[in-house]
């Protein structure tokens, strides 16, 4: 971070603006909007800028700049096209420790101005630290389309309620929860649809309501996808941002964890092979306990919680204990890895069905019935490590699947370390033996793998 972002209160404070042309006028407009009192210095000053000065109760000097113009100013902007003059203004201001900005000359600036999305009182500032102003502007354009104009209204109404809500909830935690409920629920919808009275009534009712709902915890069982943080769903991201505590396991990538709310407590619950950090029963119980303490608990899992994720077991206990919860599906590893490896899971000519199986042969629950897996028009996806790979291939062949059936082993799919090993049922074990393969891995069997060669697109660094 090259710059420290701040929002300055300029109301009634003197700001020096040197220049009187278009650029200066634009800067003047912004300063005036923030309530600054303008001091404009230039031999020639645009009519609009003059007007702004009058409205802002500022002053105009129609002459060349002189060092004394900086006196009493809290901020300076140089918007002239004379380089030597800009340099002088910058130097003068720096001597006096007044923050100075020279338009389009980052080297002469002690602060830079961001691109702004103005939904006052909500204001979003975007900066690329002067490195890529066009990019910053593009980001602004995207945000403009994403954030409804009515957000300003929302923020205004919120500010009207601030004091009352503050006195109602002395505890910061329940206050924040109340706000989140208001700003994300029906009240927000009403406000944004212009039904202000109805919105106010809603908040009123909510305030009068029993508080217990707010102090009651809840659990979000969320699929974190296969690894690439960009494959998180919008809902996953939203819940990650509002959780008090996060339980995660090894399949959740670091890049995904980065996006969890900074001050959320993080609890690692396993499980690497042989590293049973926590038994499943204990995880289930922990979720219940934390929620009973009033926490918003995020249970973040790799992939999808309901596909080999034991999600059902975790929420079963929650349901028994009447704890509110919701489940958010995630991109399952098969989808993510297939997409990033350029291997369609189904295809008109090659596969009319796709079957997901877990390859942990040793677990007592798993008892693959091999004849069913031999069907040549079905894609098989094994969610598994490398243990047992050879055995699986041999069994498939023994039960009639062609030894030449193409297979793909995908290591660390969708991440920057993704590797795709292509072979056939007969040869894959050998290929794996000579490559240093690490978990997590996913194994795809079927004619669709033939397409990998022409469809692969994902490039890693």
């Amino acid at each position: 971070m090259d710059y420290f972002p701040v929002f300055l209160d300029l109301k009634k404070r003197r700001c020096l603006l040197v220049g009187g042309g278009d650029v200066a006028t634009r800067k003047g407009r912004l300063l005036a909007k923030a309530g600054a009192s303008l001091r404009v210095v230039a031999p020639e000053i645009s009519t609009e800028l003059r007007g702004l000065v009058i409205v802002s109760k500022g002053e105009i000097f129609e002459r060349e700049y002189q060092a004394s113009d900086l006196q009493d100013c809290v901020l300076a902007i140089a918007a002239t096209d004379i380089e030597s003059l800009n340099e002088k203004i910058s130097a003068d201001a720096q001597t006096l420790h007044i923050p100075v900005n020279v338009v389009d000359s980052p080297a002469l600036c002690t602060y830079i101005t961001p691109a702004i999305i103005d939904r006052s009182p909500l204001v979003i500032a975007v900066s690329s630290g002067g490195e890529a102003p066009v990019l910053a502007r593009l980001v602004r354009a995207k945000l403009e389309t994403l954030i409804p104009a009515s957000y300003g209204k929302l923020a205004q109404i919120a500010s009207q309620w601030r004091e009352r809500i503050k006195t109602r909830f002395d505890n910061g935690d329940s206050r924040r929860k109340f706000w989140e409920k208001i700003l994300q629920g029906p009240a927000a919808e009403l406000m944004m649809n212009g039904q202000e009275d109805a919105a106010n009534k809603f908040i009123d009712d909510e305030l009068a309501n029993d508080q217990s709902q707010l102090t009651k915890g809840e659990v979000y069982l969320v699929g974190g996808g296969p690894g690439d943080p960009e494959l998180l769903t919008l809902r996953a991201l939203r819940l990650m941002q509002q959780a008090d505590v996060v339980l995660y396991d090894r399949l959740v990538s670091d890049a995904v964890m980065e996006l969890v709310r900074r001050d959320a407590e993080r609890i690692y619950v396993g499980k690497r092979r042989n590293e049973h950090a926590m038994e499943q029963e204990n995880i289930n119980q922990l979720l219940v306990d934390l929620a009973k303490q009033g926490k918003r608990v995020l249970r973040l899992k790799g992939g999808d919680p309901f596909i080999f994720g034991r999600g059902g077991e975790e929420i079963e206990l929650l349901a028994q204990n009447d704890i509110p919860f919701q489940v958010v599906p995630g991109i399952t590893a098969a989808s993510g890895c297939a997409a990033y490896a350029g291997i369609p899971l189904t295809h008109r000519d090659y596969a009319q069905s796709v079957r997901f199986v877990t390859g942990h042969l040793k677990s007592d629950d798993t008892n693959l019935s091999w004849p069913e897996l031999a069907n040549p028009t079905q894609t098989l996806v094994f969610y598994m490590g490398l243990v047992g790979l050879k055995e699986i291939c041999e069994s498939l062949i023994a039960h009639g699947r062609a030894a030449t059936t193409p297979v793909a082993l995908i290591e660390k799919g969708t991440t920057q370390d993704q590797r795709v090993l292509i072979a056939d049922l007969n040869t894959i074990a050998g290929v794996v033996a000579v490559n240093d393969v690490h978990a997590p891995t996913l194994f795809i069997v079927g004619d669709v793998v033939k397409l990998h060669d022409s469809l692969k697109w994902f490039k890693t660094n």
Partner: protein
Amino acid sequence: MNNFLKAPDFFKANVEGLPSTMLKARSGGDGQAKKMDGQGKKIRAGKVWLVGAGPGDAELLTLKALRAINSADVIFYDYLVSAEIRALFPKNIPSFYVGKAKNKHSIAQENLNQLLVSQAQLGLNVCRIKGGDPFVFGRGGEELLALRTAGIDADVIPGITSASGCSTYADIPLTHRGLSQGCTFVTGHAEKNLDVNWDALAQLKHTLVFYMGLTRANDISAKLLAGGLAADTPVAIIENGCRKDQRNIISTLSELPADVIREQVQSPALIIVGEVVRMKEKLQSTVKAHAAEAHYLLA
């Protein structure tokens, strides 16, 4: 600019008003001369994102899908892309419906492939967005192959496939200890004979999900019964999954065909067969987490 008028004929015929709309959208545009130049300068081909939109709920879009939507010059979508998601398309770029609801005539797959290629060759960045996941009964492989063959740069963005989204929203886990150790997604597409090994599908401790299976409910029921599954094997029919009007109909393997008719189930619908359907009762939370009802801030 004339390039836009060179769009193939089927394109004009099927995508009503495309050329002019497109011209309007682009001429107000961002001065990307490389694309607009029709006077002999080489046009750099655009990029195509083959995007999975998920089953309907806009909050189930991935961050990457949203980025593609916002970076495109033109969007092509099909009928499974929900209205809620279409509402997120930027207003200043054109978007076109390219099929395919049953009986509604829309562009044939080969023409659609060609359309994507030609749009990219015009220098446009194309967002091709489809319901669910492009690689699960989405014909994404065919589109990608056409693009790659033409030398077009194309990315695939996976989406939540409807089996996963719809089952989750119906409180049914696809796999569950003791009940199901795997799941199979099968197409019941009516166009072809069901080329399925039914005996292999009729397996205990396994979940079956039929896509496009409504018109094949009879077949599905009869053949799985013949394959050895019990008549009372629980079945869930999920209509309009992950949308405001999602309907979950719980049935059994033997009752399935009758229930589809009696309940007048409409497409899109999924049929889930297996013991996991019984979990639904156990997993329904009496109080839903309030965030569940919350509307996504940006939607």
